[in-house]
């Protein structure tokens, strides 16, 4: 049951009421949450993102789980108070707020959290029970990634007090716009027609492209993903896709990790976030490269996957499993992406996005030229 801001307090009350009624009847309460794993993921290319299947995880109240339940209800009270007052906090702050509550009320000492991991787990557990995002509980992560540049984009933000803030990105000079973890409050418009949006895996390379005049020469939105996209980046791309209807292209490394952990998450969400993929994925985004054929075509410097690099080896193993089990890569619409994974598995080589700088080392705009040429010629997947 996906929630919205308005019904979180209502949903919480209903949940607590049901628990209380069960207890009054000495009936063991059982809570069900969506199972967030690949074996419960469904992909339909019409939606374009991973959605939850029918599997649920049941948490039964017993001697072993009573502590977790008591902690969850305690934390839920704190979060409901935040929603009521409009206060927001990070997970770390909530950890200290809990410590403070317990300090001032010795009868709660048994609930005390030994470290932040414990309180984080409880917040995640509440989200699973209520099937909501933590942002809906006014619990925000630090904004990470998504630094955006454009000469055409205008962002209007509705503030908590109802005021509106208008940000014209063309007026920011070399300062990027930082999207928020809660992109639902943003409204986008274009001063002039925008041709495309380019999402670059490396934020450093995105900044280089801008510094070299990319956004001046092309009516575009350019943003850096900074590795695995955060909720802010994912929601921001979805917003650009939905509100501006411009084509989106992703430019990143050619390796198994980028394909599965970065691009797939951006395009279709992840198995861990099944319940929020609908709001945090941009199915229209295309994979611009680096493509396997680019290596030959542009004579790019690639290199073999290091056998002793645990992360790369793990990514290849995961790619092998993904081709067998991941509904996203199994879908016929994503045949091209699956083929790239297969190529990576067969050749065990990788090529970084920065390899475009080898094509003409004296021309700083060469990567830009290749990118624009690829877009023009439809050389993407």
């Amino acid at each position, binding site marked *: 049951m996906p929630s919205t801001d308005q019904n979180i307090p209502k949903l919480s009350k209903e949940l*607590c009421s049901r628990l209380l009624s069960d207890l009054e009847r*000495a009936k063991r309460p059982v809570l069900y949450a969506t199972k967030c794993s690949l074996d419960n993921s469904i992909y339909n290319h019409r939606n374009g993102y991973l959605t939850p299947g029918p599997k649920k995880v049941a948490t039964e109240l017993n001697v072993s789980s009573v502590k977790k339940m008591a902690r969850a209800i305690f934390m839920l*009270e704190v979060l409901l108070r935040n929603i009521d007052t409009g206060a927001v906090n990070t997970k770390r702050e909530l950890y200290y707020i809990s410590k403070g509550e317990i300090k001032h009320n010795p009868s709660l000492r048994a609930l005390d959290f030994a470290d932040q991991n414990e309180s984080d787990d409880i917040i995640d557990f509440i989200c699973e029970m209520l099937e909501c995002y933590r942002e809906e509980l006014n619990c925000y992560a630090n904004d990470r990634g998504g630094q955006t540049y454009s000469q055409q984009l205008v962002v209007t933000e509705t503030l908590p007090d109802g005021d509106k803030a208008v940000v014209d990105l063309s007026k920011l000079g070399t300062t990027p716009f930082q999207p928020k973890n809660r992109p639902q409050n943003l409204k986008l418009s274009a001063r002039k027609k925008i041709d495309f949006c380019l999402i670059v895996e490396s934020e450093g390379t995105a900044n280089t492209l801008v510094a070299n005049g990319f956004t001046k020469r092309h009516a575009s939105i350019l943003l850096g993903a900074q590795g695995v996209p955060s909720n802010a980046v994912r929601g921001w791309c979805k917003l650009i896709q939905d509100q501006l209807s411009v084509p989106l292209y992703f430019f990143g490394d050619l390796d198994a990790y980028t394909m599965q952990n970065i691009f797939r998450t951006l395009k279709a969400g992840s198995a861990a976030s099944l319940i929020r993929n609908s709001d945090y994925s941009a199915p229209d985004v295309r994979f611009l490269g680096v493509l396997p054929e680019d290596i030959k075509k542009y004579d790019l410097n690639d290199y073999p996957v290091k056998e002793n690099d645990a992360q790369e080896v793990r990514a290849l193993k995961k790619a092998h499993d993904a081709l067998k089990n991941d509904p996203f890569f199994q879908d016929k619409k994503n045949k091209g992406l699956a083929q790239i994974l297969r190529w990576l598995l067969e050749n065990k080589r990788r090529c970084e996005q920065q390899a475009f700088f080898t094509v003409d080392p004296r021309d700083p705009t060469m990567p830009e030229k290749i990118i624009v040429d690829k877009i023009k010629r439809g050389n993407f997947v």
Partner: protein
Amino acid sequence: MAKQPGSNKITTSSTAEYFSKNLQQVGFSSQTKAILTTLKEAVDNALDACEEHGILPEISILVEKVGQGSLKNSDQIRIRVEDNGPGIDPEDVPKVFGEYLASSKFGRGRCSRGQQGIGISAATTWAQLTSAIGARVTTKTKSMRKALSCLVEVDIKHNRGVLKDRAMFDWDRAHGTAVEFVVDGRVQLNGEAGLLNYLSGTTLVNPHLTLTYKLPDFEPHRVDRVSTSIPEIPEATEPHPHTMKLGEFIAHSHLFGRVKVNAWLKKGFSRVNEGTLKDLSQGGFPASLLEKSVDSLGDTQFKNLFVALQNLKLMAPSTKSVISIGEEGFAKSIKRLGAIDFFAVVSRKPTICDFKPVQIEVAVARLEDRSVEAESAAQVLRFANRVPLQFDKSSCAIVHAIESVNWRSYGIVQPKNALPQGPYIVAVSVVSPFIKFKNASKETIDASDELVEEIRRALIQAGQKLSKHIRREVKANELEEKIRHIEQFCPILVDGLCRITEASAARRKKAEDGLVKILGRDAHVTKTELDEAHAVLEAQKSSILADEIIAEEVRD
């Protein structure tokens, strides 16, 4: 043999000369070790003598500081060990205490503590070198009217014991021996290499021993025997051809003089019989040679015979020659180490490892004393022929075997490939007439694969037994934890739910009762599991008791 300085003349040294210059090889490598080795040699001799004569040993030990030693940073220490053993014939006294390699046990294929006749003479040499005075010996056999008191010194040049200050006197006991050394050294009481560890180890593997000791800074202490059965000394077995080397094989033949080769083989070796001789002939060894006198064989013929024997499939040596402590004695004895929560004892059947008979016995106990840090390794007590091993732990077969066991599966904390941790004692006794030590001072057992595997099996059995106790304890803790959880979290959970739903006090009371009822059911399930674990343990105890009763009946 050695060249004299300044000349090319080659000279021969006596055994005593060799050892007096290399005492570090036999346990006198440091001042603390010297004290321990001296004590150990005297106690080993006392225990061996008592056992051979069927006497229940009563040993009293005195270790005291008497002054400053002549060596740098050393004390002068008096070590006195007195036993109720059979005593020593006066004519044997100089050989026992003052002559190297004079032994009643050498090469006899027995599981005695001493083997070569080096240790006690080395102690006398150390006393002589550091205090200029040998061993003071008092002894009396049953047939002597008066006891002999004398001073024994080693004539290092000629490897001979010399008696001094001989006197006869009335001793208030029927028989026994007391030996006293005044040596330079330092007393280390605690730690793995400490005297206390040695004494507790010795009492552990000798349940029939009554020990009285007085150590520096300690009140006199007495440990009474917990068993009155003296270990039966099995008959010595003849050597097995497969455990010998060619040189030993030839030397062995010299003990038999003019006998026929076939008679020598049958008489002088175990597991060699008519069938073996037939197999030898069939295998191509000339039958005529078997009829020849053994002293007429040349080196080549000896070699051919030896090789032919090595290539034959012979029965493994007999395991009857090993001495067992016994599960019963071990179990009683382990309680003498201090207060323990529970323990498990395993006495494996004698078996053959590396073609030598061996018996492994293991005791694992958890101490009540929790003062040791949880992360510190369990205390390991190693024994070879019932003598504690206190040095060079890491390369010992026993330690290798302990580390190879997965103690985690029995509920004991263990870092990967390391000793288990916590307040545990793991005692392993290896008994064999042919223990392969890594050095002459018998500090560590060579880690052959077969031996390590045999020890490992004994440890696994002990771990399985012990895990029943641990599981019961875990269940009891779980029950306690669950009850505590119910008491702690039920009111908090119900309070929180009531605040969020703004429920009435009546609902709160009803929900609290309901929750206690639900969780009480869980606690009941754990209680049942606890009772089951307890029942398993009781069943194990009664089966051990039943075995003991049967064993008693058989003995009667």
